[in-house]
C-alpha cells in the first residue's frame, strides 16, 4: 500500500510534464503568423539553405541566385518562355557586320538607394566582370567583347571581336547584374543596392531574409509589400509548415517530397527544367578514348528506365539541347532505344570483350544521383560493361569534377536558354570547361563558331541541330533526362510563374490574398 502511494507520487512530475505539453500545444496559432497582417502583403517563401553570398557576380548557389534576381537587374531579361526581352536596356541594335551592339538604356532607372543607373554604371560593371581580379563567374560570357563605351548617359556600345548572337541572352543572367560604380563588393555583401523589384531590409544568418518592395523599381509596381525567405533546412518540415499555413510558397526538386505536399492538400505545379541529367564521359581517359566503347555504352542504356527507376518517371528523356527553342530530338541518336545487339557490335569493333569504366557519383548534391548510377550500372552490366561506382561526398565530387579527374561522371548540369551559353563553354576546344567535357573536334569548333555568329534564328536552329547530332553520333556524353521543379503554394497565392531556368523573378508579379 505504501509502495503504491509512493509510486503515484512519482508519477506526478510526469503528469505535470504532460499537462505542460498539452497546455503549450493547445495554444493555437501564435501571433506572428504573416496572415495576421491584412494590411501588408508579405509572402513567406520556404527555402532549405541560407544564401552563400549576396554579391550577384559570384552567386552560383540556387538560393543565392534567386535572391539576387529579386534585388538586382540586368541589361536584358528572360520572359516566362525564355525569350530575351528588354531589362535595363529598353532596346539594342546590332550593326550589319555584327561587330557592334548598341544598347539604349531605360530612362529613369534607379538603384535602390535612389541614385540613377546610367551608362557609366553599365560600363563599370561589364569591365569589372571582364577583369580577372573580380573573379566574376560570367567573365567568359564577355569573351568576345573587346571594348565598352558610354558615349552618353543612356547609350552603351559594345565592340566585339567576332559576331556573338548569344550575347543578349548571356547578358540576361544575374551574374551580369548592373551595379552602381559607387559600390564595392564589401558594401554590397551586407547592403545590396540593385535595380531589382525588391530591396533587402534584414538578414538573420541561418534563419531568414526579409525583402521589401523597391520603390525605385523601373517596372510595374510589385503587388507584394515584401517577401520573407524563411530558412527551414528539412524539406519535409517545409511541407509541414505549409500545411499549418506558416509558409506560402516553395520550390522542390525531389518528386517524392512534391508528392507528399500534394497529399497534404497543397497546390503543386511542375515545370520542366533546362538542367539535364547526364552520364558525362571523359573521352581522354581509359577505354573511353575509343568511340566504339562510348557508342556501346550509349546503346546499352534505356534512358526511360533510368528516369522511371530513379525519378519515378517524373521527367522527359532528352538529347543535348534542352532549351525549348532549340530542343534536340531525343530519337536522333545512334540507338534511339536500347539495343544490346548493337552495343555488342560496337564493343566487338573496339576489340574488347569486356570493359570497366569508373564513374564518380555525388551523394547529397541532388536527390536522384545514386539511384541513377545504380540503374546505369545494372543496365551496362548486361552489355559486359562494368561501371565501377565511386560515391563521393558532394565536396569531394565537385573537386574531382572540376579537376576532370574521372572517366565518367553521373551529373546534373545546369542548362541555359541559349545553346551557345549552354555548351559554348564545354565543347569548343577553347572553351573554359573543355577539360571537364573531355572531348573536342575541329567539326564542333567550326559549328560552334558558326552558331555564335549566325543571327538568323532559323539558321541558328539548324546549326545547333547539327551540333546536337555530332554530340550524339560520337557518343560524347550520354544525355539521360530532364526533370521537373515543383512549385508548391498555399491557397491565395497568385501571379507567380515558375520558369524552366529555375528563376524566381516572377515573385515581382506575385500577390497573396
Amino acid at each position, binding site marked *: 500500500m*505504501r*509502495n503504491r502511494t*509512493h*509510486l503515484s*507520487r*512519482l*508519477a506526478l*512530475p510526469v503528469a505535470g*510534464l504532460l499537462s505542460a*505539453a498539452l497546455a503549450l*500545444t493547445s495554444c*493555437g*496559432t*501564435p*501571433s*506572428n*503568423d504573416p496572415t495576421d497582417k491584412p494590411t501588408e502583403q508579405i509572402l513567406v517563401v520556404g527555402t532549405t539553405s*541560407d544564401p*552563400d*553570398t*549576396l554579391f550577384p557576380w*559570384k552567386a*552560383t*548557389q540556387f538560393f543565392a541566385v534567386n535572391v539576387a534576381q529579386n534585388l538586382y537587374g540586368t541589361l536584358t531579361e528572360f520572359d516566362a518562355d525564355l525569350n530575351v526581352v528588354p531589362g535595363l536596356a529598353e532596346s539594342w541594335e546590332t550593326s550589319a557586320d555584327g561587330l557592334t551592339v548598341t544598347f539604349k538604356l531605360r530612362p529613369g532607372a534607379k538603384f535602390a538607394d535612389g541614385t540613377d543607373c546610367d551608362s557609366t554604371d553599365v560600363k563599370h560593371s561589364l569591365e569589372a566582370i571582364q577583369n*580577372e*581580379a573580380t*573573379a566574376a*563567374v560570367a*567573365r*567568359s560570357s564577355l569573351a568576345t567583347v573587346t571594348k565598352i563605351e558610354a558615349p552618353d548617359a543612356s547609350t552603351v556600345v559594345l565592340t566585339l571581336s567576332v559576331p556573338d548572337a548569344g550575347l543578349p541572352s548571356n547578358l540576361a543572367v544575374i551574374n551580369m547584374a548592373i551595379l552602381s560604380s559607387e559600390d564595392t563588393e564589401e558594401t554590397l*555583401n551586407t547592403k545590396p543596392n540593385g535595380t531589382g523589384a525588391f530591396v533587402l531590409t534584414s538578414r538573420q*544568418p*541561418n*534563419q*531568414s531574409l526579409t525583402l521589401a518592395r523597391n520603390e525605385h523599381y523601373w517596372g510595374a509596381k510589385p503587388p507584394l509589400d515584401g517577401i520573407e525567405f524563411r*530558412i527551414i*533546412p*528539412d524539406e*519535409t*518540415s517545409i*511541407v*509541414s*509548415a505549409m*500545411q*499549418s499555413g*506558416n509558409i506560402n510558397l516553395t520550390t522542390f526538386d525531389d518528386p517524392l517530397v512534391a508528392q507528399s505536399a500534394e497529399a497534404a492538400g497543397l497546390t503543386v505545379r511542375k515545370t520542366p527544367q533546362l538542367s539535364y541529367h547526364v552520364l558525362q564521359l571523359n573521352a581522354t581517359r581509359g577505354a573511353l578514348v575509343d568511340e566504339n566503347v562510348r557508342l556501346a555504352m550509349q546503346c546499352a542504356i534505356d534512358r526511360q528506365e533510368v528516369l522511371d527507376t530513379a525519378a519515378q518517371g517524373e521527367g522527359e528523356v532528352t538529347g543535348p539541347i534542352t532549351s525549348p527553342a532549340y530542343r534536340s530530338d531525343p530519337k536522333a541518336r545512334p540507338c534511339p532505344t536500347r539495343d544490346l545487339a548493337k552495343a555488342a557490335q560496337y564493343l566487338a569493333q573496339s576489340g574488347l570483350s569486356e570493359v570497366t569504366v569508373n564513374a564518380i557519383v555525388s551523394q547529397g548534391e541532388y536527390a536522384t544521383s545514386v539511384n541513377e548510377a545504380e540503374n546505369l550500372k545494372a543496365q551496362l552490366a548486361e552489355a559486359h560493361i562494368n561501371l565501377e561506382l565511386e560515391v563521393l*561526398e558532394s*565536396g*569531394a565530387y*565537385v*573537386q574531382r*569534377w*572540376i579537376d*576532370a579527374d574521372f572517366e565518367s561522371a553521373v551529373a546534373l*548540369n*545546369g542548362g541555359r536558354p541559349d545553346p551557345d551559353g549552354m555548351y559554348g*563553354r564545354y565543347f569548343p576546344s577553347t572553351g*573554359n*570547361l573543355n577539360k*571537364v567535357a573531355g572531348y573536342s573536334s575541329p567539326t564542333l569548333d567550326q559549328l560552334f563558331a558558326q552558331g555564335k555568329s549566325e543571327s538568323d534564328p532559323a539558321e541558328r536552329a539548324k546549326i545547333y541541330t547539327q551540333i546536337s547530332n555530332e554530340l550524339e553520333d560520337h557518343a560524347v556524353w550520354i544525355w539521360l533526362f530532364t526533370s521537373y521543379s515543383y512549385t508548391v503554394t498555399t491557397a491565395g497565392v497568385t501571379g507567380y510563374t515558375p520558369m524552366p531556368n529555375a528563376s524566381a523573378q516572377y515573385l515581382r508579379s506575385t500577390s497573396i490574398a
Partner: protein
Amino acid sequence: MIRRIIRHRLTRRLATALGTLLGVAILVFIMLRAIPGDQVTAQFGLEAAGLTEAQRAQLEAYYGLDRPLVVQFFSWLGNLFSGNLGFSSRAQMSVAALTAQSLPVTVELAVLTIVLSLLIGVPLGMLSASKPNSLRDGLGQTVGLAGLSIPAFLLGSSLLAWLAGSGFNPNGLGYASLTQQPWLNLQQMLLPAVVLAFGIAAPIMRTTRTAVLEVRSLDFIRTARAKGVPVRRLQWRHVLGNALVPITTMTGLQFGYLLGGAIVVEQIFSLPGIGRQVLIGIQQKEYAVVQSTVLIIATGFVLVNLATDALYRLIDPRVRVS
C-alpha cells in the same frame, strides 16, 4: 609554494583541459584540410572549373588559403587569444556574433532536454527498480529500449507531420528568441526537447535502475528499514541519494553531448543552434567558423565535466574526504 600550486588537483585538471582543447584544435584543423575541396569550390560549385588561374589565385588570397598551413593555424590560434574567432564571409558576420546567436539556442534546448530527461528517466528507473522483473519493470525497460531504438529524425518528423495536420507548427514561424518572444520560444522548444529527451531519458532510466538496485541491496538500507525509516524517506533520501553519483555522471555526459548541438533535431525543427552552425560551416568549408565553433563546443564539454566533478563533492561526502 609554486610546487604546491603545480601539484594542486585543480591545476592538474586545468592543464589536462587545456591540453585536450589544443588537441581538438589541431585535429579539427587537420581534418578540415583533409576533406577534398576548399571555400572556393564550396562557393562556386561546378562553376569553379571555369575560373582562370588568376581568378582562382585572387579568391584564394581573399579567403586566406594562399598562406602555408602552419601560418594559417597559428594565425587563427593567435587571433583566438586576442578574442577574434574569425569571420564568416557567407553570413558576413564574425564567428563570435554568429555564436552569440546560436549558442543560447543550443544551451536552452540542452537544459530543457536534460530537465525533461531527468523527470522521465529517474522516476521510471525507480519504478522499474521498485519491483525487479515485474510487469512495471518490464514496462519501464520497454520504454527505455524504445527510447534507445527509435531514431530522433523519425520521431521528430512524425511528430511534426502529425501536429502540422492539426495546424500546430510553431517551428514553421521562424525562430523566436527566449528574450523577445518567450511564449512562442517555449512552444518551439517543446517538441525538439521532447524528441531528444525521449532518447536521453533511456540511459538515465537504465542507470537509475541499476544504481538503485545496487544501493537497495546494501546493509545500511536494511538497517534503516529495520529501524523504521518511512518508505518515502528511505527511497528518496537513502536509496536515491546514494545512487546519485552514476546518475550525475550519465546526465553530465549527455548534457555535454547536447551542447555539441543536436544537428538532426535542429535541422528538423529549424532551430538555428550551434550544431547547424558547424554543419553549414563544414558544407561551405568556412574553416574559421568550424574550428572556432568546435573549440567552443569542446570547451563546453570540458566545463560540464569539471562541473560534474564538482557536483560529486556536493553529492557524496566520501569524495570530499578523499
